[in-house]
Structures are given as structure tokens and as C-alpha cells.
């Protein structure tokens, strides 16, 4: 095992960038993906027929095809068609649309939207109807029922499953190395190409992922325990 390359500042810089990008990707696609998931779930539960069918089709297609294929579909497929739209190069969006990072975040957001959407659909349907009826009887406006009653209760029901989805998201980040985004795997691959070491860089980032998953699991367990309504009654502040 030869880890002397860790003394090289350039490589450390790559690894750090890869690490930060990994966290950003998880945070961004996790947040936007969850918003999309709520939309997908709502469309199927209360949406009009065509919208519900569209949402169902969306989840079926996304969950039935490999994420790697979706990534290339957006990056190479859609990404190469965009410049043919006249005037797109002059808009403010062009610097974003040219960046591989954007397509990685886009693919992950859509993927989270589909997988978590299914989870949220199940959870939102499991919220007892009486609680929503009670909220309506109090005259709470619809959007507030959603934000204050329906969603919090649904999240409470499926929180452990959502934890699993976040870990899956974290573990799919290395896929973006294939579309030239600097993540941990990309950094390791650069080190491998330049130092001719086959395993050391890969083992190092395997260790980093192991640690990240462990930390994420612990953090989420903490969240699960402190989530309102999940705490034992005697710990609750009045």
C-alpha cells in the first residue's frame, strides 16, 4: 500500500473538491428531489386524471431504467440538442446548461423525485383521514393543511424509508464521474492515471464513503428520534 501521493497538494485539492461536490450534489438534489417527490405524490392522490397518469408514468419510467442511462440521456442526449435552439447561447442560463454538474444534479433530482415520490405517496395516503378532516373543520386553508398537517405527518410515517433514500442518493454520486464532474471517484481516477496505483485511491474513497454512510445513518437516527411526535412523551418540552 503506497499512500505517499497524499502528500501531493494537487491531489489533495482534487479530493477536497470531489468531497465538497459530493455533499453539494446530495444536498441540492435531495432538497429539489423531495419537493418534486411531494408534487409527484400529490398529483397521484388528489390530481386530476391526466396529471395522475402522467405522474405514474414518470415514476414507472424513472424507476424502470438505470440512473446511469438517465444521466447520459440528459447530459449527452438533451444537452447536445440544447445548443440547436436558436438564441440559447445568449441567455443567462447558458453557463449553467454547459456545465456537467448541472446535468448530474438534474438527473439525481429527477431520480429522487421518482423514488421518494412513491414513498411519499404511500405515506401521505396512510395519514388518517380524520386528522385532515379535523384540520378542514377548523377552517385551515388547504395549502396550510398540506404544510402544517399532511406533510409533517406523512414524513413522520416514512422517515426511516426516506433515510434509506438519502443513503441511496449518496451512493449514486460516483456515477457523475462518468460525465466528467469532479467527485471523489473522479479525483481517485485522476490519481490512478497519474501514479499508476490501481487500488490505493479507490480504497481511500471507499473508506470515505463508508464513513459518510455511517455519519449519515447516525445523523438520521438522531433526526428520527427528535422528530416531533416520535419522542417519548417525558422528553417533550411543554
Amino acid at each position, binding site marked *: 500500500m503506497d499512500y505517499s501521493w497524499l502528500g501531493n497538494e494537487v491531489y489533495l485539492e482534487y479530493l477536497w473538491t470531489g468531497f465538497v461536490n459530493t455533499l453539494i450534489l446530495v444536498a441540492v438534489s435531495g432538497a429539489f428531489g423531495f419537493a418534486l417527490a411531494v408534487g409527484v405524490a400529490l398529483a397521484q392522490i388528489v390530481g386530476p386524471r391526466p396529471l395522475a397518469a402522467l405522474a405514474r408514468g414518470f415514476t414507472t419510467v424513472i424507476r*424502470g431504467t438505470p440512473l446511469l*442511462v438517465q444521466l447520459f440521456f440528459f447530459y449527452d442526449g438533451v444537452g447536445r440538442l440544447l445548443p440547436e435552439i436558436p438564441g440559447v447561447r445568449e441567455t443567462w442560463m447558458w453557463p449553467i446548461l454547459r456545465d456537467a454538474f448541472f446535468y448530474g444534479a438534474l438527473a439525481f433530482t429527477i431520480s429522487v423525485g421518482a423514488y421518494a415520490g412513491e414513498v411519499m405517496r404511500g405515506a401521505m395516503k396512510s395519514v388518517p383521514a380524520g386528522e385532515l378532516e379535523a384540520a378542514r373543520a377548523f377552517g385551515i386553508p388547504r395549502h396550510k393543511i398540506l404544510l402544517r398537517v399532511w406533510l409533517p405527518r406523512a414524513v413522520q410515517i416514512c422517515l426511516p424509508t426516506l433515510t434509506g433514500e438519502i443513503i441511496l442518493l449518496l451512493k449514486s454520486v460516483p456515477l457523475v464521474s462518468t460525465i466528467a464532474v469532479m467527485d471523489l471517484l473522479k479525483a481517485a481516477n485522476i490519481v490512478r492515471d497519474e501514479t499508476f496505483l490501481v487500488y490505493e485511491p479507490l480504497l481511500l474513497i471507499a473508506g470515505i*464513503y*463508508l464513513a459518510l*454512510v455511517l455519519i449519515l445513518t447516525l445523523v438520521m437516527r438522531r433526526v428520527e428520534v427528535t422528530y416531533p411526535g416520535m419522542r417519548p412523551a417525558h422528553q417533550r418540552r411543554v
Partner: protein
Amino acid sequence: MQGFRQEGLLDWAGPLLWGALTTLEIAVLAYAIGLLLGLLGATAKLSGLRPLVWLATLYSTVVRSIPELLLIILLYYAGSQVLERTARALGFDVVVEISGFVAAVGVLAFVQGAYMTEVFRGAINAIPRGHLEAADAFGLSRGTRFKRIVLPEMLPNALPGLSNLWLILVKDTALISVVGFEELFFTAQQAAASTRSYFVFYTAAGVLYLVITLGSNVLFREAERQVRRGQPGV
């Protein structure tokens, strides 16, 4: 341009279907081996023998927390080297050249086995203790007890997890393309690069995967009906 014809989807239909077939072959083989590994892992975890429990826990925990792509790249390269070293240690002076196919199947099976270990462990744990005790009281041997009681009783519990893992496996086969093995997605990438119609070919690959996954959903639903026959309807 004289004599030059733009290649299209039709010219690549053959290779793409061939790639889909390779993908299916890899997935089926890896699934079968993964089932065995999972059963072994679950048996080890439930055996109560310290070293076995420890080994199986290490296997299922580590493999499940490292990204599949990373594992596949690691094992793909490490696999041949480990085999070569073992062969050298045994006195054979050979250069081991495992084929891409074998490596792909081996790596995916190894990863699947870790997830299957957890599925089987949960499913076996859900069998009522009394049933196993009854089997012991009747003097069934361990083998017979497994074949007649444990297996048929745990399958209904395990099947939803198993069908999920099959879908994950089919989608994970695409990762093998990253190490340059020619399956469905690798073929689609080649086609896309050579015709420069990326959109068309990635869509085509997506459709083929979708056909496989939706098709297997039907099969698994039938299988679930089979293993649940005799159970009271829900």
C-alpha cells in the same frame, strides 16, 4: 457525399438487442449466484457462531455502504489480480485472464449477495418459532427442515425484497459498461457516438431496460401468487 450513408437506429437494432440479451444473461447468472451467497450469509448471520456472524455482518455492512460503481471498479480490477496471486501461490505460473463476462457476473453477484443476506435474514426471522420447534419435535433433519419448512415459509416474506433486488440488479448491469464490458448500455453508447444521435440511442436503451423491468414485474407478480397459494387472502 458519395457512398456515405448516415447510420440509424435500424442499423444498430441487432447489436442493441444482442446487448440486451447479454445484459439479461449477466443479470440472471449474477442473481442465481447472489441468491446462494445471500442464503449462505443469512445462515451464517443466524448461526450464532461468533466468527461466522462477524464475517457475514462485515460482508453485508461494508458492501452495502460502498457505492456500487466504486465496488464494481475495485472488484473488477482486484478480482483478476487476486486470482492470479492465488494461482502463483499454488505454484502455477500463469497469467490469469478472466473474461469480462465472468468478472461482470462475479462482481454483481458479490454485491447482490450482501443485499440478499439482509432480505433472507429478515424473512427467516419472520417465521414463527413454533413452526421450527414443531419440525424439530417431529425429528426432521436440518436439511429436511430447511427444504420443507424454512424455505416455503420464508419465500412469501422474502419475495417482495427479492423482486426489488432483481430490478436493482438489472439496472446495475449498466454500471459494467464503465469498465468497458459490452452489454446493452455500452452498445448504446457506441451507437450514439458513431451516429452522433445521442438522444435517439439513449432513449432506445432506456426503452429496452424498461421492457426488461416491466416484463419481470409481471413474472414476479405471478411468482408471488405461486408462493402465497394456500395462504389466506388479504
